[in-house]
């Protein structure tokens, strides 16, 4: 009974706090809410600016003329006389087209091989019954832990010994393996109901045909995601291509841009260099904007860079 009286005093269960007081609190809360919103948007915009600014600067510099750029002692934030001359230089004075072409060939070959190899392996893990399946899968998974820095050394020696330096085979083959994508595909394959497999078996469908006609179409979204992620990876890969190629005819864009920087237009022609950077960056940005959702979903499912 005593306690009861006490609670009534505390006011929490109390009814009348007074309307005016409520309104005051209400207004204060609203004001604080608005300030918080404003701060949030300001903070987010600042980071957006930091992210976007290099892209803007790269575009801006790439359309400034060589003379104008070098005459600016204080960098200008815009230009009134944009020129495309730098792009012409980028395509004519350095083998940028060659770099791009090499990268496309490299990316397409590697990705295609990776998808075929991974789909086959994932299918075996997801659908086929065989002895030692779980053990082998665990082994595969543990290979995800192997840092690429460790294996690159021997691969370099192997490529040298097999005369694979400065060949596409040397570029592509060691880049094919991706345990993570096998894992991702296997998880996806396992979600396809067993009944479909049994139904196909009853109809006398072979495993390979079932894989091609049923599994792959059903799991197309994941396969597309994996493909895009691999293409991005290929486009940006630097270390292995640098080791295995020293002939500029086989350079990919990453090495190409280093080459351009060190021996290309001469160190001072920054606008032309930026034009090359734009050309290299744009394909991926377009790919990203088109497949934004897929890429972000795929990456957030645990894809680590590299």
């Amino acid at each position: 009974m005593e306690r009861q009286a006490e609670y009534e005093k505390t006011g929490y269960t109390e009814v009348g706090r007074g309307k005016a007081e409520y309104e005051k609190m209400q207004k204060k809360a609203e004001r604080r809410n608005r300030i918080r919103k404003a701060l949030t948007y300001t903070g987010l915009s600042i980071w957006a600016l930091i992210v976007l600014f290099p892209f803007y600067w790269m575009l801006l510099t790439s359309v400034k003329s060589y003379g104008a750029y070098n005459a600016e002692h204080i960098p200008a934030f815009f230009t009134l006389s944009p020129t495309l001359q730098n792009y012409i230089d980028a395509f004519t004075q350095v083998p940028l087209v060659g770099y791009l072409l090499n990268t496309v060939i490299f990316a397409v070959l590697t990705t295609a091989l990776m998808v075929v190899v991974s789909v086959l392996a994932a299918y075996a893990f997801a659908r086929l019954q065989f002895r030692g399946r779980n053990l082998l899968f665990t082994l595969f998974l543990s290979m995800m832990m192997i840092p690429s820095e460790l294996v690159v050394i021997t691969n370099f020696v192997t490529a040298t010994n097999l005369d694979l330096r400065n060949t596409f085979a040397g570029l592509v083959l060691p880049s094919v393996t991706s345990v993570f994508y096998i894992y991702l595909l296997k998880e996806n394959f396992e979600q396809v109901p067993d009944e479909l497999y049994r139904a196909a078996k009853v109809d006398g469908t072979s495993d390979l045909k079932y894989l091609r006609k049923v599994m792959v179409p059903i799991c197309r979204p994941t396969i597309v995601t994996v493909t895009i992620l691999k293409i991005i990876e290929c486009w940006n890969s630097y270390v292995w291509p640098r080791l295995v190629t020293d002939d500029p005819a086989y350079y990919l864009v990453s090495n190409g841009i280093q080459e351009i920087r060190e021996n290309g237009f001469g160190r001072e022609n920054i606008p032309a260099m930026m034009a090359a950077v734009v050309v290299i960056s744009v394909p991926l940005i377009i790919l990203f904007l088109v497949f934004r959702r897929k890429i972000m979903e795929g990456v957030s499912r645990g894809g680590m860079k590299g």
Partner: protein
Amino acid sequence: MRACGGLCTGAENGVKKMKIVLQNLTKTFPGRGRKDRNDVTAVDDLSCEIPDGELIALLGPSGCGKSTTLNLLCGLEKPTSGRIFFGEDDITDLPPELRGVGMVFQNYALYPHMTVRQNILFPLENLKGKDRPSKEEMQTRAEETARLVQIEDLMDRKPKELSGGQQQRVAIARALVKMPRVLLLDEPLSNLDARLRLQTREEIRKIQKKTGITTVFVTHDQDEAMSISDRIAVMRLGELMQMGKPQEVYDNPANLFVAKFLGTPPINVFEGRVRDEQLYIGDEAVFSVKGTADQEVWAGVRPEGFILREDGPLSCELNRVEIMGRDISIIAGHKACMAQTIRAIIGADTGVNTAASQVRFALKAGKVFLFRKETEERIF
């Protein structure tokens, strides 16, 4: 009294009137669809009064606006128009924490990384200034509340180590510990298995009686609502269809929807006609309806409203007979019946000739309702 400490502020203590009044409450959500940008009205002009200290069930099929109503009560949603009063206070514009409501969520929303004790203490630790009890006071209150819902032995476990029913009690304790003026429960039993559900609903009823807190709970299960609440409010498409004591609503449904929604097995609905104060189903005058004008009607007959009689006016084709111990279900066909078959329940002591192809029924007074054909409103 001692066992439940300060929480037992039941009726005998004469707590302040804490009725809840809803005035013309409306909530619309902006349309989400790409093509269909029309606003969705979740709650439509809802007015009612919930008496102090009662347990009220908001009942209705999914999408009827009962959960939205609960969210409006606790302040997680703001009404588009209309007012809400707790007692004499207009709390429509108050944020949840100033309303003094306790809420139990459908999946309990127990913080998984905290022990039961920490979960129960959490709301108290949020209090500020003069409302904030001392550390010991908090502990005592937490323990008292835990005793009230009988989880005092589980205080140092984590939620995942508890059964569904125990989690439910922790959730109730967490809602009660700050001594809310109003307790809100969102489908509190839907995550429990059938047996536990029966047990837990008794438990909720007991706790509510002990504390005397005005309690609103949302459910789609009419059995649950009928069995434990003081009053039920049946909702449909955001509108309040009827509110009253469970038996009243069952015996006097305001319209066809309420009649169909309450009762298991459900009410049997026939197409009928009223001529000269007689109800006709098919060509037979089956029931006398004094004071009803001639018109087309829906006639609803509760399953227990049939009397098996050789000379009964309603003749049906007998499909089968199910004997279920206490009583007998007769499943029969009639061409005026809206469903495929009608189901009549009669006492097990009545003899039924299961070989017959026809059965004849008379109808019990008080178990037959007539509804206007167009509006589905009750007319008898």
